């Protein structure tokens, strides 16, 4: 069974790139354009990993992480933040909300895959 990943980012081109890179490595990928959409999808099925941008309309990444962690099925699911910000505040915020870790944008697709592989074991 291929591992499934929920990729959340408000930028269409970014989503396309994430999906392309991940699907190419054999992962099943579903996309969402903002936190609310992602939450709606997450409520209907489970994923092995959630990759989420931070700055998004409607519901941002931090809030999404918080809400996901409140769902019983997502208590331990690895959630990685996608962030360009090197600032520690956002990372801290994410961590406090329950993020597993982060991937920095712009991402090198090979690095992305390595990190994903690390997390999924």
């Amino acid at each position, binding site marked *: 069974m291929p591992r499934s990943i929920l990729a959340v980012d*408000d*930028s*269409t*081109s*970014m989503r*396309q*790139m994430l999906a*392309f*890179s991940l699907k*190419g490595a054999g992962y099943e990928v579903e996309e969402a354009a903002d936190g609310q959409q992602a939450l709606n999808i997450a409520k209907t099925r489970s994923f092995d990993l959630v990759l989420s941008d931070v*700055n*998004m*309309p409607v519901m941002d990444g931090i809030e999404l992480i918080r809400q996901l*962690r409140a769902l019983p099925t997502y*208590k*331990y*699911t*690895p*959630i990685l933040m996608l962030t*360009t910000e*090197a*600032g*520690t505040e956002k990372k*801290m915020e994410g*961590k406090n909300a*329950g*993020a*597993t*870790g*982060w991937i*920095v*944008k*712009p*991402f*090198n*697709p*090979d*690095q992305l*895959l390595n990190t994903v592989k*690390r*997390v999924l*074991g």
Partner: protein
Amino acid sequence: MSIDLSQFKQSFLEESDEGLDVLESGLLALDSGTADDEVIHAVFRAAHSIKGGAGTFSLTEIASFTHVMETLLDEMRDGRRAISKEAINVLLNSVDVLRELLDAARDDVPPEMSRVNEIQAKLEAVLNAGNNQATEDKQEAETESEQQEPEADGWVIKFHPHEHMLRTGNDTVRMFKELAALGDLENRVNLSGLPEFEHMDPELSYLSWILHLKKNEQQGAIDKAVIEEIFEWVEDDCDLSIEPLTSEPDDTSTSEQNDSPQPAEIPVSETITAADNVIPITGESDAQTVPSKVPAAGVQQPAEAQQKSSTRKKKATETGSIRVGTDKIDTLINMVGELVITQSMLSQMGEDFSMDKIEDLREGLAQLERNTRELQESVMRIRMLPISSSFQRFPRLVHDLGQKMNKKIELKMFGEQTELDKTVMEKIGDPLVHLVRNSLDHGIEDPQTRLAAGKSETGTITLNAYHQGGFIIIEISDDGAGLPRDKLLNKAIEKGLVTEQDNLPDEKIYDLIFHPGFSTVDQISDISGRGVGMDVVRKNIKELGGNVDVRTEEGRGTTFTIRLPLTLAILDGQLVKVGNETYIIPLVSIIESLEIETDNINTIAGTTEVYKMRDKYIPLVRLYEVFDVQPGTHRLQDCLLVVVEGDGGKAGILVDDLLSQQQVVIKSLETNYKRIQGVSGATILGDGTVALILDMSGLLTLAKEIEPVQNYQNQTYANG
């Protein structure tokens, strides 16, 4: 394995174009104070997305430039910085710069950096003026990121996860697996933290470990930084110490290193995490310190950056393709479906027809007419786009020009969703700009004058678009000074266009502004006095089959009204008969039609014929003569005169008869033949024959060239 993402570059560039539009409109909204809370966040996100994508495609100039914008916007959205006019202006200029940079990226040429650097310096000036301590701290932290990484035979890692570490989805086993991949791992677990089984909560972590990680043959020496990276996500959720492995066996006592090393660890590892797979950050810190770094990065051959940004706007509008909503396509498909049904019904009727079915036939044909008309309308609608894409340039234009002229101006736009033909829209852009500029320049007064006149300081320009009949109406109004009637009249008299005795009604006086060469601008402002006058505006609009009028009230304001047909390819025409020929005169050119009274025909200087219409003389055009066809009648009093408006003048066209008025589809003569003077195109009439559509200005020009009819013929007609 290397994944190539370059195929997504185009998508990113398009997305960035849209992002820039969001940026610009958001900034303008913030400036005018009409923005709600969400706007600044949307603006930030737009810049943020562009930065992120730019980094992915190694568009370093864009990434570093956008980073500065983003920093400024970040402060604004967090409330750490007030949204000042100065900041907004710099940001608006940044949007322009970004457009140029994106164009360069699109065309794969190195960008022209001089303006980029100029604006970037301004951005940074604004940033620094706001006393930004945080960024300086970050810089210092990063410059201290050189840590000595002593090589050792291995490392002793003491790892004690806090109770709730598992809540972050991090997994101890996973981390140990990663460690094991680095060398030889020995693991000693401390179970002392475990509670009684009944009290064990599976979601909590109670254990701690002391790990010995020794370098082995294959892997070689292990970098401390690599180990730290494995733990970087959980550094706040655990107690961690990484010490070089010495030859002495470590104490297996359960005492863990507690708080003392940790605080020292954390800042170190933080800076190190900043170093690793985060290439842009080093670039970012450079951008913040020394603007001159940027030119070093992009060695420039000066590219035609200026040109490109002007072509960018064109790209959006003048492409040979059009986006059509699927709803329009679905409607079209339905229409065609109905047409097919009607056709097969008629076909069946034709198989086996008898005169008693004549009523059915009539009904079928009426149905066919309905289907065809609906289909025609549906198809026309495909080429229609909302006028918003024409309107969208105006907020920025009004903002910039208002500032330049030190006038306070508010722009209101209505009816942006009103649709019009794509080609018409592309061509109406420039005339619209000219009219708006005119309002900005000559209409709206400066704030002091307005106040003195009892008006509010801020002038308003309103754009309004709506459908009326088969036309689209676009109104451009301002609440400014209005047109100066007397000044206009005097100027006209001065130029010899009218005389004092003419006693023109006011509306005719105001209409004079559309006359070629007529400009009341005292000094040529670079804004609208460039010689592209109102006459060109009217000419361009007429070429589209429309017209423009002006209404004004001195002291109150002015309104320009543009009227355009909804599509270029269809024309409302008046069919006229001359001999055996049928011609079509565009309805929009016809002023009136009347019966000839032969007494009113006069000849000037023996050659030019004129017709006395009320108290004016208009040139008489004998169409049969100009086109060299046989007239239907030689009795002038049986003819009709169609009074039309051509280039700057009226004329009367002599025809035998007026036929119907109908909408005709314009077909080109030039496709298979060539342009003929006096003829603007052709159409196919209901009976399948071709009728020529007359071009008024060409016709009138021709009429002047044609040798007049011999005098004797005149006499024959007059006596006829």
